[in-house]
């Protein structure tokens, strides 16, 4: 276990390498053509070659100091991102106001550690205010809104 820990930072370059190799294969499948008559795959091939090459170099020479440790804070950020994903999914179904309210509440309570009353107030004001700004003032067409539909707006 211990001897592996020193090599954890190599996951990044390995991922880069994997993407590079996959892109090389994809570019070849698109057909490279020749320099006189370049095929659609030639340019992506050049880019993928550069990606693979730098990935290989990084695998060997990369400085572990560049990497920040993943902490409990990181886990919270990941949770916040998951919350955002739920927001987008819900937005497509029930419109802006309700998902925005819940998303703001989550972030203000969990990340901002704001007191309940302030978090609730800000979330309500923010979700309604931004809805009015984008939908009514700027004329963006959000998906039909469940909450705005209830109050007949």
């Amino acid at each position, binding site marked *: 276990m211990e001897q592996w820990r020193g090599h954890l930072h190599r996951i990044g370059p390995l991922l880069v390498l994997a993407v590079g190799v996959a*892109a090389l294969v994809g570019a070849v499948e698109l057909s490279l053509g020749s*320099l006189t008559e370049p095929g659609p795959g030639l340019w992506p091939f050049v880019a993928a070659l550069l990606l693979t090459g730098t990935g290989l170099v990084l695998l060997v020479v990369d400085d572990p100091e560049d*990497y920040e440790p*993943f902490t409990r804070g990181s886990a919270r950020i990941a949770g916040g991102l998951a919350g955002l994903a739920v927001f987008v999914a819900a937005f497509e179904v029930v419109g802006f106001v309700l998902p925005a309210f819940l998303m703001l509440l989550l*972030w203000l309570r969990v990340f*901002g550690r704001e007191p309940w009353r302030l978090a609730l107030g800000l979330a309500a004001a923010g979700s309604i205010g931004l809805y009015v700004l984008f939908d009514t003032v700027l004329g963006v067409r*959000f998906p039909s809104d469940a909450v705005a539909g209830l109050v007949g707006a």
Partner: protein
Amino acid sequence: MGVLDGIAQGFAVALDPVNILYVFIGVLIGTVIGVLPGLGPTATIALLLPLTYEIEPHTAVILLAGIYYGSMYGGTITSVLLRLPGEAASVVTTFDGYEMAKQGRAGPALGIAAIGSFVGGVLSVVGLALLAPPLAALAVSFGPPEYVALTVLGILLITYLGTGSAVKSLCMAALGLLLATVGQDPIAGTTRFTFGQVALFDGLDFVAVAMGLFGVGEILHSLERTEKAQAVARRIKGIWPSRADMRDSAGAIGRGSVLGFLIGVLPGGGGVVSSLASYALEKRRAKDPSRFGRGAIEGVAGPETANNASSTSAFIPLLTLGIPANVVLALIFGALLIHGVTPGPQLIDQHPEIFWGVIASMFVGNLMLLALNIPLVGVFVQILRVRAGILSAFALLVTMAGVFSINNDATDMWVVLAFGLLGWLMKKTGFEPGPLVLAFVLGPVLERAFRQSMLISGGSLSVFVTRPISGGLLAATVLVVVISVVTARRRARVLHRHDELTPAEGER
């Protein structure tokens, strides 16, 4: 059209009430986000890109440029008062600015920074107006091989002059080039890397990628690190520097203007490099270098002047060659493309209102910043009371709503989210998102120029070396890479030394 006619036209544009309003909004937003750590000019411009769809292209650039140089002013405030650089270019200001503040001289430090920034900005605007037209005239004769050489030079310079590891930056530039190929082949129209998704046929949306990487990614990254912000209660007195202060810093301001201007023109130059270079120059010239790091006013005046001068001259390569010199300019490049304007040598003739209007607006904007900064420093500092959690929650929500508004399509929201995750992970693993976005913007330009070059030369790569200008540019590329590898070591040493110095002094 002569330079004087151009400037006259420019002021006609810049003094239009609508544009005055947008310059004001731009420099105000710029100052505010410059004060706030964790929300830099790149993130802000990325977040505001969708809102520029509705306004005229020249007004859009005037607004975005105002945010850019406005943030240079704003970053100074927190560097001096709290040793908390609001954006990267102000790190150098913490060396002497914070020391001055500890000695009760925060006022003069902020005052001289504002004055220096103003002088640097205005001199740089003049240089821009004089230098850009001849450069554009020269660039009109460029063919595809020259563009390949120029673009490669630009991308390489940015990876080498950047702050992190050069190999990692190059790696990210390669990824940007690769991501730019998603969608239809620019010449034959074959779809590439779309995995059968119709939404990807037009390629990844630049705005969504930039908002994800810079907006969401940076918010997440800084949120993870910021501690509770300190409230500032101290009153700042005597902003206007004394006559002795002015005399001490006059030389530094003059040298900072020239140095900042020259470095800003270079791709990858931008704020951090110019302010570091100016600091190093002032320290070397000083009779008593040991004063630096202990509250030398030249150590504030020079770098602050230089970073503002460079943020103005960085527009030269964009407006004349169509090559953005750094990430912020890449975003502005993207904003112009969205409006159907392709920046390049023809810009002066085809869109004089953009070219001269932006130049004139910078003059107006710098004047506003000087007027805003000196009396209102105390007000701006209060912005720090807004807590990071509240700020980030709202910024994320506005991002999501904004990106949806581009195409009224929730797919873009998923793209932002995916690139936000990528941007956060990149930040944590030391990969810079800047080169990625820059290469992403330049990718299609580079590919088209490369393939056209191959058609011209009948498939021979020697075309890049045998044509004098492209050959010269490639030689310059090699030269600059060699030089920057050497100077990067020295720069790292300067920063390193300060890292060792500052904690010890902070404990006193």
